[in-house]
């Protein structure tokens, strides 16, 4: 293994709480971390930022004892530690709140908190009263109000996160690591989480927050470490640093700004019109019309009918809709159309989960690009796949959509997330569809890849006059791209207004406070 010479590690003079020195980790041929440094001052909030794939999660997993590093050392309060397991890390005072909560859904809050303990007092008998009292006292002390008797599956996401934090605190965590804690929260919940974190900091705890959202970094943290391609490229105080500086350090170049262009005129014909789509308890879309060349964004907290709306439009779900419901693409009714007929009519769909719905990960890029309709050639009266034509065309498409590496035979799982999404987008957009339904099209993508997806959607709308319905839980994305903005709350879709809306207004509508 060749070792590259690194510039001298960035220095912070006073870093007693947590210090990671020259951490390296490889997965197969990929170096996830290469000489990464992290230095967290006691009693501070430290932001660990970087694009997807920069190594943030790997570093957190190493610190929390879940994976072992190939090299480097971890100091906790000045002492070198070596964790054999996640329990070791927890016992040493590290509390981790993972992106995906690790809670037993059918159990109560108090039981979940007690589950984290491995004390002899737990023994064979579970003392419900005591555990509930302990949980209540802890909630009181930390200001994290949550009912100890509530069952986790009845709680909203923000509350579940509180339970995770309480779990960590109950085990005596002095350092709290939160991995992308705001990814699942609505704006008001984010604010309440931040207040909690501030008060935990004031009570002397040290907090490390992993994020790629820059506004969060500046509103919460005092110090920052930037990871890029597994290396720490910047570390230090946030004083005097601008968001643009940080973004540039994260991606190593300037972030392209979005110039959305002008929306289509009022006389433009409609590309997609939906009315009376009601599906009791899940979805209620009274009336929605998208013009050719227009981008309509649907904001909302996950689980408010987005999945249902996307599936009904894509044709992958056929709930019993009222007879009066209409689904028109131009003048074609989609109501009775199969998925295939819809794509022939000019509907493109970018699904919300590229691994689950967008790609067949162990098939080649060529095959993935042709999932909707393979190229055929006839022989002996039968239709056969035209492998040569598909290979040639897919090579062109991979170049046109700047997929890296542009190798047709590679299985889709060999690509990074951003490039996988580009393959999905190439498949859906190269036919110049009339309507594009994009569901969380940039989820999990880094800043650069997300910007590319955005420019593809914009160009599809403005240059080839597709009507775009952007359903996204990323509010910033909706605000940046949409000509008109709607919100889904408890299945109800309401149009709020046009471009230039106040973020806080949309944020309130997302939680039904409008």
């Amino acid at each position, binding site marked *: 293994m060749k070792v590259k010479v690194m510039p001298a590690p960035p220095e912070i003079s006073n870093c007693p709480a947590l210090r990671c020195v020259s951490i390296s980790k490889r997965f197969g041929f990929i170096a996830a971390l290469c000489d990464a440094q992290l230095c967290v001052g006691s009693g501070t909030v430290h932001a660990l930022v970087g694009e997807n794939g920069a190594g943030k999660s790997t570093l957190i997993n190493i610190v929390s004892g879940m994976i072992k590093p190939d090299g480097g050392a971890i100091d906790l309060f000045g002492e070198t530690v070596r964790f054999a397991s996640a329990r070791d890390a927890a016992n040493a005072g590290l509390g981790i709140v993972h992106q995906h909560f690790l809670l037993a859904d059918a159990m109560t809050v108090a039981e979940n908190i007690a589950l984290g303990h491995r004390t002899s007092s737990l023994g064979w008998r579970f003392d419900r009263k005591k555990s509930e009292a302990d949980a209540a006292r802890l909630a009181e002390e930390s200001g994290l109000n949550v009912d100890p008797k509530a069952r986790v599956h009845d709680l909203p996401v923000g509350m579940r996160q509180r339970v995770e934090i309480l779990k960590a605190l109950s085990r005596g965590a002095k350092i709290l690591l939160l991995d992308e804690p705001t990814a699942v929260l609505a704006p008001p919940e984010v604010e309440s989480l931040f207040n909690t974190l501030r008060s935990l900091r004031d009570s002397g705890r040290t907090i490390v927050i992993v994020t790629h959202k820059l506004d969060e970094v500046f509103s919460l943290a005092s110090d920052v470490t930037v990871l890029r391609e597994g290396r720490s490229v910047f570390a230090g105080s946030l004083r005097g640093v601008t968001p643009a500086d940080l973004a540039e350090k994260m991606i190593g170049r300037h972030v392209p700004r979005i110039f959305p262009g002008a929306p289509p005129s009022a006389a433009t014909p409609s590309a997609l019109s939906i009315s009376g789509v009601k599906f009791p308890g899940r979805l209620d879309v009274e009336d929605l019309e998208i013009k050719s060349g227009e981008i309509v964004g649907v904001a909302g907290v996950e689980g408010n009918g987005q999945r249902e709306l996307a599936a009904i439009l894509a*044709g992958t779900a056929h709930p019993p809709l009222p007879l009066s419901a209409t689904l028109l693409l131009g003048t074609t009714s989609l109501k009775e159309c199969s998925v295939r007929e819809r794509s022939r009519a000019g509907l493109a769909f970018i699904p919300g989960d590229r*691994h689950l719905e*967008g*790609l067949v990960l162990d098939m080649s890029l060529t095959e993935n690009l042709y999932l909707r309709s393979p190229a055929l050639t006839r022989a002996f009266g039968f239709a*056969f796949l035209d492998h040569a034509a598909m290979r040639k065309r897919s090579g062109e498409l991979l170049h046109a959509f700047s997929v890296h590496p542009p190798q047709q035979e590679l299985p889709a*799982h060999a690509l990074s997330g951003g490039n996988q999404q580009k393959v999905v987008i190439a498949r859906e957009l190269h036919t110049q569809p009339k309507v594009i339904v994009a569901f969380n099209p940039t989820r999990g993508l880094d800043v650069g890849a997300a910007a590319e997806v955005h420019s593809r959607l914009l160009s599809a709308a403005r240059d080839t006059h597709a009507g775009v319905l952007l359903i996204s839980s990323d509010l910033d994305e909706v605000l940046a791209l949409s000509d008109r903005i709607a919100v889904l709350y408890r299945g109800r879709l309401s149009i709020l207004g046009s471009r230039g809306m106040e973020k806080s207004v949309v944020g309130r509508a997302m939680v039904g406070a409008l």
Partner: protein
Amino acid sequence: MLWLLLLGLGTLVILALIVQLSGQDPRGALDALWRGAFGTSHGLAATASRAVILTFYALGILISFRAGTLNIGAEGQSRAGAALAAAIGTGAAGATIGSVPVLGVAFVLVAGAAVGALWSLIAGWLRQWRAVPEVISTLMLNFIAFELVRYFLSTPRLLQGPGSEHKSDYMAEALRLSGWETRFHPILLLGVIATLAAHVFLVHTPAGFALRAVGSNAKAAQTCGMAVDRIQLASFAIAGALAGFAGALGVLGLWHLSNTPTYPDYGFMAIAVALVADLKPLRVLPVAVIFAGLDVGAKSMQGSAGVSYWVVHLIEGLIILAILIRGVHVFEKSSLEAGASKAAA
């Protein structure tokens, strides 16, 4: 390919070890094994015919696995096909069908395939109707098929032949394949044809493409407009048809249907064949020849070297385990996704 060689070598070493442990001479045993399977024209013919039966089973299992359905009921499906072949190939019906020379044989084979497909579709329908896992339903349908056929064979007015218990009557003269298991019969070329057809189907037809996509990620295939339910039902039908075909072929070759299966557990051995072939049709035939040779050779090894035939079953079990430990892509979809998300992290 290297891995296949290692597997073969490992098999021989383990076999030799077992023979050694049982106090026999491993060299002599292996020698007897080889001579029994490939050393005589008789042995070769037996190996070839059994390899073809295995090939049909394994191709069906492979197509099922590639479609994401774990149909392991080749035994029962083949039994259904064999029973129908015996029913229409004997007595008055057999005389009528046998009056058309080559087409009569083809008719019996196709009828066997049809019944095998129907038997397999029971599991397919159960899966779609009530989400019954096909690993269990196909296995249970094996038992049902066996007991049904056993009942037919011991009931005089159904399948039981005159003067024999638990056996069918002999097939009409014109329907008997002569020299099956004793000299190379041209009908064995059907195994080669089926292998090529399966390859062309999977790699070069739109239906095969859809089937592979559905098997690898049904959700994505559905999102892209593929008829997932229909394709998976079709995979049940294809697997059942190939097994039923092989069942009918066995009856034609051995001239009657008996209560004790001629090719015991071949439906399961074929799972190993399909897995060793890495679910690729073109690799099935050579792997099937090796497995069939092991089976035929073990019988003569039992005779001449005194090593129990059942050692073959032990070896098969070990091979299947070795393959699963190495990892088969149909079974590791979740771990593949975990790997992908790990790489993204």
